[in-house]
């Protein structure tokens, strides 16, 4: 800052390296104009990058939806065909509908702070294993097409 203003607002570049002392007036001036700029910065950028974020994450959401849907579909048909005589199968189909709900799959613990998936989705992996067990019993050839 200019030396000509030092007598009013104090110096921000002490030669001796000691802690800079800001005068209250200097701080007030900075706060007023910084806040004004901050608010204008927020309103000026409005919905910038909103669409970009949407387009970036959409394929991942699609893939997760497709995978969850397939697991549910397999269980639903097996339940339709064998559920009356297979309590475990029927129970798993009911439970899957709860545990694979969108609000249990799109959950923050599965994503990093930028909303990228962290490794395998644990809930989906769990249900892959369960669905495989039922497939092995009734439709073994499907098992190998369900990931790990």
């Amino acid at each position, binding site marked *: 800052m200019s030396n*000509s*203003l030092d007598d009013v607002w104090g110096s921000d570049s002490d030669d001796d390296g000691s802690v800079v002392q800001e005068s209250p007036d200097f701080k007030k*001036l900075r706060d*007023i*104009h*910084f806040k*004004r*700029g*901050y608010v*204008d*910065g*927020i309103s*000026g*950028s*409005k*919905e*910038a*990058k*909103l669409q*970009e*974020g*949407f*387009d*970036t*994450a*959409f*394929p*991942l*959401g*699609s*893939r*997760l*939806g*497709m995978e*969850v*849907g*397939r*697991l*549910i*579909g*397999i*269980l*639903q*048909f*097996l339940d*339709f*065909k064998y559920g009356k005589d297979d309590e475990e199968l029927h129970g798993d189909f009911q439970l899957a*509908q709860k545990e694979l*709900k*969108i*609000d249990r799959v*799109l*959950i*923050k613990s599965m994503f990093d702070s*930028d*909303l990228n998936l962290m490794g395998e989705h644990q809930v989906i992996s769990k249900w892959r294993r369960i669905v495989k067990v039922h497939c092995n019993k*009734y*439709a073994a050839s*499907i098992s190998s*097409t369900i990931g790990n």
Partner: protein
Amino acid sequence: MAESELTGLDKLLDLEEEFYNQGFEQGSAENVKHNYIEGKQYGLQVGFQRYLLLGQITGLLDVLEVLDGDKKVFAKKIESVRSLLSGVKMDNDVASVADYENRFTRIKNKFRTILLLLQKQLKTGPEDTLSLTEVERVSLSIADEIKGRVEEDNVGTAESLQDQVQNW
């Protein structure tokens, strides 16, 4: 006004502008970051919702095909739906979305005929068979729970995206 006073005033105005610009840059950067993450939340949710039923139909057909075995009563119809499913793109480009809409309707209609054929084969009444309505009911119960956000873990009273925006 003396020249030195004018110089001091100019520097004061420069300083105000500098602070304003610093604030503007920070506000803009934070908002852009916030928007990007918010957009990703929407993208994850909408992508999930749009493809869930297609995945479900895929799974139902997988089992039906196995149970159909060598009889191949359903083979042609299943193949017809599979060919439509295999071409579905999973991005949000305008052309991909239009193609999705077109395929989605055709897939549902063809799948409905498969279920009607299944009902005939099993000689069951509508109440004892697997209907498209029931398939869609399950799909909706799974996909229609949140509004535009990735959920916090173990939060019972999740605020809506709109609430988040207002609180931000």
